[in-house]
């Protein structure tokens, strides 16, 4: 497992399961320009998924907050993965109103072809209380 840190945001990447690249988002994505740090990271993840013929799983259950610029970066990445025919499954915590609102709307990119699916996981433990630093 590898861990990438972008300010208050940490993304853990787990490639221990064959055919899967799992990303766990933790903390807060509140960078002023998240695309500048996430775009190179996403490019590397896409490259690994394509070369290793892996599907992506992105888990947001432990994410405490994201700003609207992060929303933009995620939307563009979802579109990019679809264009490259990389399979993506997104899991969120439907108990968080802010997550439910965004990911429910993100379903517009689910074309029913299996390339992009979204699921709510309400069984995961809630994220820990965060301390601002």
């Amino acid at each position, binding site marked *: 497992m590898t861990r990438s840190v972008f300010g208050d945001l940490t993304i853990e990447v787990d490639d221990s399961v064959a055919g899967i690249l799992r990303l766990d988002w933790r903390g807060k994505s509140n960078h002023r320009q998240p695309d500048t740090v996430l775009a190179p990271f996403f490019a590397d993840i896409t490259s690994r998924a394509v070369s290793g013929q892996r599907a992506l799983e992105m888990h947001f259950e432990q994410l405490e*907050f994201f*700003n*609207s*610029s992060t929303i933009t970066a995620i939307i563009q990445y*979802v579109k990019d993965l679809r264009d490259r025919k990389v399979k993506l499954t997104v899991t969120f915590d439907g*108990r968080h*109103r*802010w997550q439910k609102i965004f990911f429910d*709307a993100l379903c517009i990119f689910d074309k029913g072809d299996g390339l992009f699916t979204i699921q709510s996981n309400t069984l995961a433990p809630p994220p820990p*209380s965060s301390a601002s630093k």
Partner: protein
Amino acid sequence: MTMSEPRRSTQPPPPAPPVSFHLELPIEPEWQNVDLLRLAILNCLHAVFGDPELSESVGIVTSELLENAIKYGDWGHGGARFLLLSARGSGNSVIVEVASPVRDGSPHVANIAGTIDWIRKFPTARDAYVARMRAIAEQPDGLSRMGLVRIAYEGPCEIEALPESGMMRVRATIPTVGRDSMI
């Protein structure tokens, strides 16, 4: 000082209490202040209303308005060196205002007014939100322009642009009850 997000309760939120408050803070336009104030407002509102979803929504509204003010305010031409955050509330609504200096003729003023007008053209804020998502995916222009659309839907809130001489004031009004029926 550390500040934490309040723990969630499985109990339904109590009815809105008959409260009245007004908080006004001069803030230096430093990026790290955005999250400090999001959490401060979130915790204050949770203490006042006892509704974690309302306080979380107001925190998000506050952070998006502060981000815009810091990004697009005029901080380098001898004007005001502070932005002004105001939060006032009653049993029916919470009003968050952020005022920041802008240069005469700044495109920021027209962009805010244009975005608010654009949101109002849709039957619902959700329709505007989804339309913006589609535009970001299909016609990326390097700009997010998602902040106001997001808070209009997520708040949900009514947004007003109130330009003054050398200042831009943006006001968001969030109802304290019946919010889920509005999204």
